[in-house]
């Protein structure tokens, strides 16, 4: 028994567009002997790269492409959606009509359908998204805080108990001193609960099926700034770490969309920067620390939108590729997989941060002891190599309200953001648990916030830069570093300037 060929009949205006393009294509007999003109016309309307490449050698190529472009614009304007999405909708409409005829019995309305009517609503979708993200970060910041403090104090106690253990001053200082390895390891370990809670929350959202909805909901808003809804997944991954987030952009089919997603991803507040902000926010803002952190997340997202929009307008003048996605049904999260994922991420953070931070802090401690210009070992931090570097940078950062120590910490933050806190503590001559009170005695909340804004926006860490270079080449890696520093300075200056005007 043979089935009959089914011709999908689209809406009248779409059929007219297909007819126009088919007529042009039919003038090339060799082309229509190889491909169905109707199929090729539909693919041209969808701006399919593969179809364009097949057509390139045809004498009717330019005329067909021009007609397809005109029809695409006309359909997009009329229906207020991309032609590709319009055609996909039309296919689903046809499927719906076939199902109505051949499937007996009423279609069951599922709980997922009813919930999606709210979660994907035009007006409520984005506010619900922000609500979910706010709750996620409040959970991460506030609930993990005591566990972070307990671990930090535990290692400080261990380090204090072992002080002077070997009797050899250099070894005791290096391992058990206030800035020694044990305290350093304790500092890193104290952030593992924060990372664990973050990935715990992200895993729950992934498992219940909300992440796909988040991408869908944000697509409409993100298209207006030159980003596709698919970018939301790397953006949310960037809240964990920018490195895997940059590699995850490989899932974005369009090369231009992928480039925009890559260069804007460093603006996502990663977990390394979160550790810096957690300390500063709790020290300076106490009960509202969670919301201060959320404001930084929002700032990063808004700046990513602004950069994407400018980049599209000034450099990449192409259009954003359409986003079509089948949503999985909602389901209960599997606690085992959530815990496993969160645990693995916590361990990964500890291993990466442990290596980088311990080595970085040892290097900074050495630079703090080597005097400049004599290059001898000493204890005068103000006369050290690191102080010379910082004092050289200080005039640039004085308008932001910083002294040379914060400038040096930001400088070393280029290696890894996790180093910023440890470096700052070293430079101010206090153990990390006492850094908050020390900074509060020297700076105002406005200066602290301005510093956080700078750390949020400036250079991504060296591993992120390497990932960008790997994916897009050194030209784009250097571009990202450059625009990051300039944007960070300008925004931080604006925050400090306006804040000073308002608060005095």
């Amino acid at each position: 028994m043979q089935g009959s060929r089914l011709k999908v009949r689209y809406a009248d205006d779409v059929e007219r567009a297909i007819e126009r393009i088919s007529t042009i294509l039919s003038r090339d007999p060799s082309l229509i002997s190889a491909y169905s003109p109707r199929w090729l016309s539909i693919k041209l309307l969808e701006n399919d790269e593969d179809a364009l490449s097949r057509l390139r050698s045809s004498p009717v190529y330019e005329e067909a492409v021009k007609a397809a472009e005109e029809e695409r614009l006309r359909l997009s304007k009329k229906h207020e959606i991309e032609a590709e999405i319009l055609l996909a909708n039309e296919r689903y409409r046809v499927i719906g009509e076939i199902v109505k005829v051949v499937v007996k019995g009423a279609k069951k309305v599922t709980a997922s359908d009813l919930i999606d009517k709210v979660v994907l609503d035009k007006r409520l979708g984005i506010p619900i998204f922000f609500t979910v993200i706010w709750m996620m970060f409040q959970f991460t910041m506030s609930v993990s805080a005591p566990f972070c403090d307990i671990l930090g104090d535990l290692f400080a106690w261990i380090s204090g108990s072992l002080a002077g253990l070997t009797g050899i001053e250099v070894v005791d200082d290096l391992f058990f001193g206030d800035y020694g390895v044990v305290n350093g390891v304790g500092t890193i370990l104290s952030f593992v609960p924060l990372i664990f809670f973050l990935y715990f929350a992200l895993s729950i959202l992934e498992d219940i099926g909300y992440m796909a909805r988040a991408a869908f909901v944000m697509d409409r808003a993100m298209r207006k700034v030159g980003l596709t809804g698919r970018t939301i997944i790397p953006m949310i991954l960037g809240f964990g770490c920018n490195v895997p987030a940059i590699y995850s952009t490989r899932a974005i089919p369009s090369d231009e969309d992928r480039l925009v997603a890559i260069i804007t991803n460093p603006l996502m507040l990663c977990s390394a920067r979160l550790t810096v902000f957690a300390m500063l926010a709790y020290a300076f803002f106490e009960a509202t620390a969670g919301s201060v952190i959320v404001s930084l997340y929002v700032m990063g997202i808004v700046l990513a939108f602004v950069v994407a929009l400018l980049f599209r307008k000034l450099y990449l003048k192409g259009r954003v590729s359409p986003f079509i996605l089948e949503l999985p049904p909602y389901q209960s999260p599997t606690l085992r997989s959530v815990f496993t994922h969160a645990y693995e991420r916590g361990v990964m953070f500890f291993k990466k941060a442990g290596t980088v931070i311990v080595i970085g802090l040892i290097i900074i401690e050495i630079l703090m002891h080597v005097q400049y210009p004599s290059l001898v070992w000493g204890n005068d931090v103000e006369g050290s190599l690191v102080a010379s570097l910082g004092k050289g940078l200080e005039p640039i950062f004085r308008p932001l309200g910083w002294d040379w120590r914060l400038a040096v910490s930001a400088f070393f933050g280029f290696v890894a953001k996790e180093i910023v806190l440890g470096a700052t503590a070293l430079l101010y001559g206090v153990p990390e648990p006492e850094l908050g009170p020390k900074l509060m005695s020297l700076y105002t909340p406005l200066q602290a916030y301005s510093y956080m804004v700078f750390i949020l926006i400036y250079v991504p860490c060296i591993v992120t830069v390497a990932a960008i270079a790997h994916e897009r080449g050194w030209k784009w890696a250097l571009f990202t570093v450059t625009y990051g520093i300039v944007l960070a300075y300008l925004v931080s200056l604006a925050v400090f300037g306006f804040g000073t005007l308002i608060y005095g």
Partner: protein
Amino acid sequence: MRWYSAYSFFVGLLYVIYGALEVINGAVAWWTPLELNLQLGLPLYGEFLPKAVSDPFFGFVMLVLGSIFILGGKRSLEGLEEGWGPITVALLLSGALAVLSLLVIGADWLDSTYPVLFGEEAGEWSILAEDWALNPGLILFPLALPLIKVYRAGRMRMVNPSK
């Protein structure tokens, strides 16, 4: 009007009112040099129950929850199935906010108490001084619980459409 429509409107309105107070208090506290503490709660040992915190983002979340409850009330005028979606989403999100509040209260208590483990004195902690304990997101959630009947009735109909 069905009871759950009116009740969902009522609960939504409460969330919206407290959300607005928090947005106003928070915006003034965060972005102006002025002081403002608008409250609409029962006085309780120098505090209010519920207490509108000075946090514009918290207030925004309350406004969103209130809007979804109100939408549930409006749509359920057309029938249980129409209102089921928004009422369920509102219950889930407001429940999540209440659970979050309890977790934060526990975390703050632990943060003030753990120094005892290292031989130091515990910090001061009082449930009345804890903004998360008095926040409307926690206090109003029990009021929303009767709407669980709507959720259960809707799920029964999905499982047994003939009933």
